[in-house]
Each structure stands twice: as structure tokens, then as C-alpha cells.
């Protein structure tokens, strides 16, 4: 931090705090209207049947019901806290988009404040110590005949660093010529005092530094650093200082290890159970297209494990948010067909076919729907010619080689039964 600009920082900090307080409405005396209160609550309540949307931003029936309930309770005069408690008592704490202010979740609110206070406190402490050392205490220390060698070494290092800082700030244009010369003169004088107080080799070396430091501003930092290194290597107090440094490092590593262990234990302990389609690690704000792609991937992954009911549920939730998703329609149609066939449900198979037809209407170039329709025509209807038409469209849509290879036996059967040649690109088997 520049010595010349220190008051400016203070002014900036005061302006920032004042702006935040005024902008945050701390000094506002007017109470919000019922509609504004309801809107504020709705903006922090999660839509129960959506992903990462507030009830204010969702038109899902569950969101509409929650909004109606919030408005009703606001009109009845219930407080924001009471309304949130009512919803939490039914949906769990995850219904509130912002973390709770009680229990373990309150750590999210408290931790930044604690860290900020600690950081500010540390900064103030460092500044006070630097200022104190830079003024009367330092002179008194270096003149004392029975001063601790460790303290002398600390003072020496501080002064060499102070000289280096002054050089750097001068070169950066942060110090005027007069200020720079005054600071330099002061620190060099103190280094000289240190040299006279101590008769050790390290002190002599530092005094030498003081005499050479005035030759060139640009050379000074390197010279001082080198000198500090020499002094440290010959200083008898190096042992205790290094030991203290090691102790501090061990303490820091131990604290980090404890924090990591607590985090690992706390995350599974206090996180809620995953619901269908939710990831283990939660979610970040994704764009609608990213969210759609992720939901489709999740559904496909579940379907691949054979959990058709769950996969259908996921595809259904995708369609609730994106009714025109041809991929979701095709996949859900195929799942419905498989479940309908297994349970001999004519209505489900009919529904499946309608979804597949809708998928083709929405995306005629999508290979999956053509493959599924062709398979149904062949396996359910025994219509090999119709299946061959669909499979031709499937091949023409350019499916991935893996999908084409998996579908090849069905395609060969269909074209053989239809008496038609196999399209180019289909493995002959």
C-alpha cells in the first residue's frame, strides 16, 4: 500500500460503505406493500417441480399453487419468516433458494463475515505494527544495549524490506523525490544504528548494505535482498526463527486438514437426499439449452441402467419445461412402447406412437424417432415395408456408427422381409 495514498483508501472505503448502506435501503423508512412483500418472498422460494427456478419465474402448477399460498398468507398478515417456515415444514429447507440463517447452513452467512472481520483485523494489526516499528519503538529497540538478537534481526529485515518498498514505490511514481529521500535517509540511519548496536557479522553485513544502498536506486533491492540472505545465513538467531516458522506451517497444515475432514463429513451429513434427476454435486446456473442437454443426458443415463420408470419421469419433466423437445418425445415414446409391450397396454403403445410421430414432425432429421418407429412397425405390426421406409430415413439422418451397428440386425431383418436392398452404410453382417 502506498504511504502517500493511504488517506485516499480510507475515503474510498467510507464512500463504498455509505453507498452500500444507502443502496441497500438501510435508511429507507417506508414499508413494502403486500404485493411487493409477496413478490420478494416468491423470488426466494424454489419452484417445487422445476430445477433452479423460483416460483416467481415459473408457470408450473406447483409454482402457481405456492404463489397463491404466499399471497394468501401475506394478506393474513403472516411474517416472511412464518411463510417460509410453513413451506419448509412441507417441502424441506431446499424449498428456500437462499441458505437458512440457523443451524449448519448459517455457516454460509457467518463465514464470510468472520473471514472479512479477521482479514480487516489482521490488516489493521499489520499496519499498526509497521507504523509503530517505523517510529519511536524501533529507535528505542536498536539503541538498547541488551536487546534480544532475534528482535534485532527482525528489525534489520524490516528495515531492508522497508528500503526495498520505498525504492519500488519511487520507481512506480508513488513517492515524491522529497518523500523518497526522507524515508531512505531515515531507514539508512536506523540500519546504521543497528550496525553499531550489534557486533555480529550479520550486522556488519547489513551496515555494508546501508553504505552501498545509496549508490543506485535501481540496484538497491537486489543488493539488500542479497545482504539479507547473507545475514540470515550467519545469524545465530536463525535456528529459533526457522523453528517458529515450521511450527506455524504445521499449525496451518493441521488446521487445513481439520477443515477438510470436517467438510467431507459435513457435506453428506447435512445435504438432503437426491431426488430423481438431481446430481450428487448440486447444480450451478446453466443456460436453458445447457439445462436441457444435461437433463436429457441424465434421463438417457437412467434409461441405460434399465430404470425405465425413472427415465420416463425425467423425460416427462423435460417435456414439462420444453414441450417441443423432439429428443425427449422420441425417448419417452420408446420407453412407453417398451413398458406398454411388457404390460400388454394398448393405450400406452398408442400413446408411444403418438409421441414418436410428434417427434418426427418436430425434427424430421432426427434419426432416433425413425429407428423407433421402424422397430415398432416391424416388431409390433409386422409391417416390414413400412419399417424399411423408416429405417431408410434413419440411415439417411446419419446416425453415429455405434447406433448404426447396434441397429444393423433389425435393419437387415426388415429389408430382407420387405425384399428390398440394404441401404449403403449398413453392415451386411
Amino acid at each position: 500500500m502506498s504511504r502517500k495514498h493511504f488517506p485516499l483508501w480510507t475515503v474510498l472505503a467510507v464512500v463504498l460503505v455509505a453507498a452500500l448502506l444507502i443502496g441497500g435501503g438501510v435508511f429507507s423508512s417506508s414499508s413494502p406493500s403486500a404485493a411487493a412483500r409477496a413478490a420478494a418472498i416468491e423470488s426466494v422460494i424454489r419452484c417445487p417441480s422445476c430445477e433452479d427456478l423460483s416460483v416467481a419465474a415459473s408457470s408450473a402448477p406447483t409454482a402457481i399453487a405456492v404463489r397463491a399460498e404466499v399471497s394468501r398468507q401475506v394478506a393474513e398478515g403472516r411474517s416472511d419468516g412464518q411463510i417460509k417456515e410453513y413451506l419448509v415444514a412441507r417441502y424441506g429447507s431446499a424449498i428456500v433458494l437462499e441458505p437458512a440463517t440457523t443451524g449448519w447452513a448459517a455457516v454460509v452467512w457467518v463465514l464470510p463475515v468472520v473471514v472479512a472481520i479477521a482479514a480487516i483485523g489482521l490488516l489493521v494489526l499489520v499496519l499498526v505494527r509497521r507504523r509503530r516499528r517505523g517510529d519511536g519503538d524501533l529507535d528505542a529497540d536498536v539503541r538498547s544495549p541488551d536487546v534480544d538478537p532475534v528482535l534485532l534481526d527482525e528489525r534489520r529485515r524490516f528495515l531492508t524490506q522497508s528500503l526495498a518498498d520505498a525504492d519500488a514505490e519511487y520507481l512506480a511514481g508513488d513517492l515524491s523525490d522529497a518523500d523518497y529521500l526522507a524515508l531512505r535517509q531515515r531507514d539508512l540511519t536506523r540500519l546504521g544504528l543497528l550496525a553499531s548496536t550489534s557486533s555480529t557479522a550479520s550486522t556488519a553485513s547489513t551496515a555494508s548494505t546501508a553504505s552501498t544502498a545509496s549508490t543506485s536506486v535501481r540496484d538497491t533491492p537486489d543488493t539488500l535482498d542479497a545482504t539479507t540472505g547473507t545475514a540470515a545465513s550467519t545469524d545465530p538467531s536463525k535456528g529459533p526463527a526457522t523453528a517458529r516458522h515450521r511450527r506455524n506451517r504445521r499449525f496451518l497444515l493441521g488446521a487445513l486438514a481439520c477443515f477438510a475432514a470436517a467438510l467431507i463429513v459435513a457435506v453428506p451429513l447435512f445435504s438432503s437426499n437426491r431426488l430423481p434427476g438431481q446430481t450428487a454435486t448440486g447444480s450451478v446456473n446453466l443456460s436453458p439449452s445447457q439445462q436441457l442437454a444435461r437433463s436429457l443426458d441424465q434421463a438417457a443415463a437412467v434409461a441405460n441402467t434399465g430404470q425405465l420408470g425413472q427415465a420416463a419421469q425425467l423425460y416427462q419433466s423435460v417435456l414439462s419445461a420444453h414441450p417441443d423437445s423432439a429428443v425427449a418425445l422420441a425417448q419417452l415414446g420408446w420407453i412407453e412402447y417398451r413398458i406398454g409391450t411388457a404390460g400388454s397396454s394398448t393405450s400406452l403403445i398408442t400413446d408411444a406412437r403418438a409421441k414418436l410421430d410428434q417427434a418426427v414432425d418436430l425434427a424430421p432429421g432426427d434419426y432416433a424417432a425413425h429407428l423407433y418407429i421402424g422397430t415398432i412397425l416391424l416388431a409390433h405390426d409386422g409391417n416390414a415395408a413400412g419399417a424399411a421406409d423408416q429405417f431408410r430415413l434413419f440411415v439417411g439422418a446419419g446416425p453415429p456408427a455405434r447406433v448404426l451397428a447396434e441397429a444393423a440386425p433389425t435393419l437387415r431383418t426388415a429389408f430382407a422381409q420387405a425384399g428390398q436392398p440394404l441401404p449403403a452404410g449398413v453392415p451386411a453382417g
Partner: protein
Amino acid sequence: MLVVGAGLIAVLATRPPAAVTEVRSPLVGNPAPSIRGITVDGHAYALAQPPGTFVVLNYFASWCVPCQQEGPELVRFDFQHRQAGDARLVSVVFDDTTSAARSYQATLGATWPTLADSKGELALNYGVRAPPTTFLIAPDGRVVAYLVAPVTAAGLDALIARAKATGA
């Protein structure tokens, strides 16, 4: 950092997904919110509190494939317990039209009360997010289980047996 990351991944990845089993709900262990409303046939219905028997409260939709999966199981459960009189079913329509739900229940052969819940109030009272969702309510009126996956008759019987064993 690597150790922390690896530890978190290991712990989170080995957690079983809750989709196929019971999940936590603030309602479990507490008195069940009141169940009253208009059935899909237009009749008023109110469940006594406490109900005196086990009640399976099932939220469903006709468009919901997992609901269609569990439908025959609910019919089986109803058939098995109707004579004994120790448990009964109440269904609630979730995010569906009354006519579609009525038609679906008729096709399924469901003869138990089915509440229309056109404004979603019953879903909100029980914190339902998606169908199928099922609650088991004990004879004393406490919610004893909450399931967010298709149920089976055997699974419901097991839950009732567990509730009885714990004094419900």
C-alpha cells in the same frame, strides 16, 4: 486440495440415490395435514383425523408413466386390504385434468376416493414435487413414510409392518 476433492467425490459418489426408496420429508413423524376436497366424481370428501386405519395417500397423473407402472400394484393393495379394513387408499390428482384422471382411474379399476385438487392445495400441503408420490399415514394420524418412486403392494405392506413394529 486434491485430497479434499477426492474425499468429497468418494463420499458423494457412493451415496445411494434416493429416487428408488424413501426420502426424508419434514412431514414424516408429524401429524398429517388435513385431507379434504372434491373427488373427480364431484363428491365432497374428508378423511377423518385421526383416520383409525393406515392410509396410503397417492399423488398421480394420467400422463405419468411411473404412475401407470404402479397403478396395478395399488389396485392389488386395495383389494388385499379392503376386506381386512386395516388400510385404505386415497388418491390425489397432480398436475392433470380431472377428466383425464377420472378416465385413467376408471380404466385402472380404482374404486377408492380420488381427489381432484385442481388448485394444487393438497399437493402444497404435503410438499409434493412430482408424481408419483406416496405417503403412508398411521392410524393415529402421523405421517410415517414418504416415497417418490413407484410403489408396490409388497413394499407398502412392508412399510405398514415396520410402522406397526415401531408402535404406530
